[in-house]
């Protein structure tokens, strides 16, 4: 299941989607808004997405992960809009029979999302703002 949403991400709902009687291992990764970037205090993050392409790129990543690992179920939820410190920006959940596969697939998915999915975040500091990765 792949979701791009303005609503808060609920871990219990995501877990429910991952249930499989064959699953022995579930790995969840949560990307959370932290209160600083290199010691500079962060007030909030603003996420923007090219929706149709963000979804199709996330689907490609999920397909590739399913080719590489024996995944029983997965869920990828990415938030957009304004997020406060402590809120979940992204949730990746992978259910497999054995734990090594769950860890590896989950990490592959989040690492690749950060490289290819057209979603952008702006860090809003108390004294300015910047689009992450935009400038050299």
């Amino acid at each position, binding site marked *: 299941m792949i979701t791009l949403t303005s609503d808060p991400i609920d871990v219990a709902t995501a877990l429910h989607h991952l249930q499989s009687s064959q699953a022995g291992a579930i790995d969840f990764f949560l990307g959370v808004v932290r209160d600083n970037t290199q010691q500079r205090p962060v007030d909030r993050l603003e996420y923007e997405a090219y929706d*149709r392409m963000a979804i199709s790129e996330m689907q490609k990543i999920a397909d590739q992960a399913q080719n590489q690992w024996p995944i029983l179920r997965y869920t990828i939820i990415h938030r957009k809009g304004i997020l406060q410190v402590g809120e979940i920006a992204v949730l990746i959940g992978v259910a497999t029979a054995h734990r090594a596969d769950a860890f590896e697939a989950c990490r592959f998915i989040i690492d690749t999302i*950060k490289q290819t999915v057209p979603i952008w975040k702006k860090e809003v500091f108390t004294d300015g703002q910047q*689009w992450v990765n935009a400038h050299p």
Partner: protein
Amino acid sequence: MELLMNSSVSVLLFGVTRDLTGQSKVSVPLSEEARVADLLSQLNQQYPALAGIRSLLVAVNGEYAETDQILHINDEIALIPPVSGG
């Protein structure tokens, strides 16, 4: 599909490119058989501020495009600055 004939294409802008141009969609004049590389040089000319961005890719109809891909007038074209999801 119709080729571009001294016409123009619409380009969707996001993130830093939207902020720098002040627009979420711009029109770019392009000649027939224009390619992604032509679009990028045209855009850089039209909006010199874009030169400060670390890298710019182009998506055509929701897929990353190579620089030699030919553009068509009905394509959905988007400029993709460095992504930072997650």
